[in-house]
C-alpha cells in the first residue's frame, strides 16, 4: 500500500542519461476520496526547495500512459483510482542534486459538485524526500 502522504518517498528520482539528466519525477498518491477523470485534474504544481515547477511545463504518467497538460484536460475516460499513484514528470536540465529536498505539491482538483468559487480546489502536501542517484 502507499504512504499516507500524497508525495511518495519511492519514485522521487532523476530521469535521463547519467551525467546528462533531463529532469526528475515525483510520485503522488491520488488523494481524493473517489476516483477522478483526468479531465477533472487541472494540474499538479510542484515547488522543490523553493523553486516553482508549474503544471503546464510537465507531464503526467498514469500506468504506462503519459499525458501533456493539454491532453489531460481533455481526457474524460481514463481515471486516477483511489489507492493508486500518478507520476509528475518535470523537465530540468541536470536534474536535482542527490540528497534531501523539500517537496511541495498542489493538485488543482475540479469538483463539479462544489460551488463554482471552489473550482478548482487546491489540495496540498509538503514533505522532505530524497534523491539518491545524481
Amino acid at each position, binding site marked *: 500500500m502507499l504512504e499516507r502522504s500524497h508525495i511518495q518517498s519511492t519514485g522521487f528520482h532523476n530521469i535521463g542519461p547519467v551525467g546528462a539528466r533531463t529532469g526528475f519525477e515525483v510520485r503522488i498518491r491520488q488523494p481524493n476520496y473517489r476516483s477522478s477523470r483526468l479531465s477533472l485534474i487541472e494540474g499538479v504544481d510542484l515547488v522543490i526547495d523553493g523553486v516553482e515547477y508549474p503544471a503546464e511545463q510537465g507531464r503526467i504518467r498514469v500506468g504506462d500512459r503519459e499525458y501533456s497538460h493539454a491532453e489531460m484536460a481533455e481526457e474524460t475516460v481514463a481515471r486516477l483510482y483511489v489507492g493508486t499513484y500518478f507520476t509528475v514528470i518535470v523537465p530540468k536540465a541536470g536534474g536535482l542534486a542527490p540528497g534531501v529536498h523539500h517537496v511541495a505539491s498542489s493538485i488543482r482538483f475540479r469538483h463539479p*459538485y462544489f460551488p463554482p468559487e471552489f473550482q478548482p480546489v487546491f489540495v496540498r502536501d509538503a514533505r522532505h524526500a530524497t534523491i539518491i542517484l545524481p
Partner: protein
Amino acid sequence: MSAFKYGVSLYSYTEDLGTVMSLEDAFDHVAGTGSTGIEILGETSIPTYPEPTTAWLDSWFALLDRYQLEPTNMAAWVDTRITIGRNMSVEEGAAQIAQDLRLAHRLGFKFLRPKFGVIDGELTPDPIWQPAVERNLDLAHRLDIVILPEIHSPTPIKHPVTDAYIAFIERTGTKNFGLMIDTGIFQDRPLNKWGGGETDEIRKKALSFLNGIKVPVEHLADVIQYVPFIQAKFHHIDENLHDHHIPWDRIVPMLKKLGYAGYLSSEYEGARDPWVSIEQVRRQHALIRKLEAEYDAAHGGNVHA
C-alpha cells in the same frame, strides 16, 4: 413500532482505504458494528470502475456472504463540468446514470445516489439533472432501484432545490426517485475539522457550510414520505458518546415519531488520521442505538438489542 436499519458507508474510511485498509478490512469493520447494510462509492471501491473484473465480482459476492451484509446505496457522480470548457449534454448525463444503474443492479444495490454538478453556491444542480434522470426512470423501475439525490448542507429542506426534486416526483408519479437526507444539514455547532477535503480556501470562504446550517429537525415531517434512505453524516463523537456537531438527541426521536424505518448509513467525515474512523463509526452506532432504545422504552415499544 418501526425500527431503524443500521449501515455504514465506506466513505467513512476515506484515506484509510488505499493506504492502511483493504476492502475486506472495511467489510469486517462494518459487520463489527452490527450493521446489516453496506454502502459504497462505486468509483472508489471498484478498482476498475465502471467495469468490475470477474475476479472482483466474485470477491464482492463472497464478502457479502461471509460478512452477512446487504448492499444498500451506491454513490455515483454526474460530472457535469466534465472539462474546463465544456458541460455534459443531457445525453451524456443520461448515459452516466444508466451506466451506474446497471452497475448498481449488478452488485445488488437498491439505491443509487448520483451527485450532480452544481451551478451556484446554494448547490443548485445543473439543469440537465431533470431530463437525464427522467430518461432513466423506466430503467430504474426495471432494475428495482430508487435514484436518490442528496439534500446536503448548505442546501436545507425548505429550499428551491428540494422543491424541484419533489415537483419532479409528483409530476412523473415515479416510485424510482426520492430524496436522501444527509444529516449534516442538522449540524448546529461549528466544525473544527472537516474530513471532506478541507483546504485553506474552503476554511476562509465556506463559513455557512463549516458553521452548520442548523435545519430544524421538525422540517423532516415535510419530506419524510420521499425519504427511503438517510446518510448519517457526523464529524466527532467523544468518549462520553457526545456528538460535538450533530443533534442526534433531537434527530432520532423525530425520525421515530415519523415512523422512519429505512437505513441510517454512517458517513464519518472528521479527522482523517489513520484508523480514527473505525472507532468513530462504532461510537455513532452505540449512540444512535441507545437513543432509539430509549425512545422505544418511553413509548412502550420494542427494546432493540
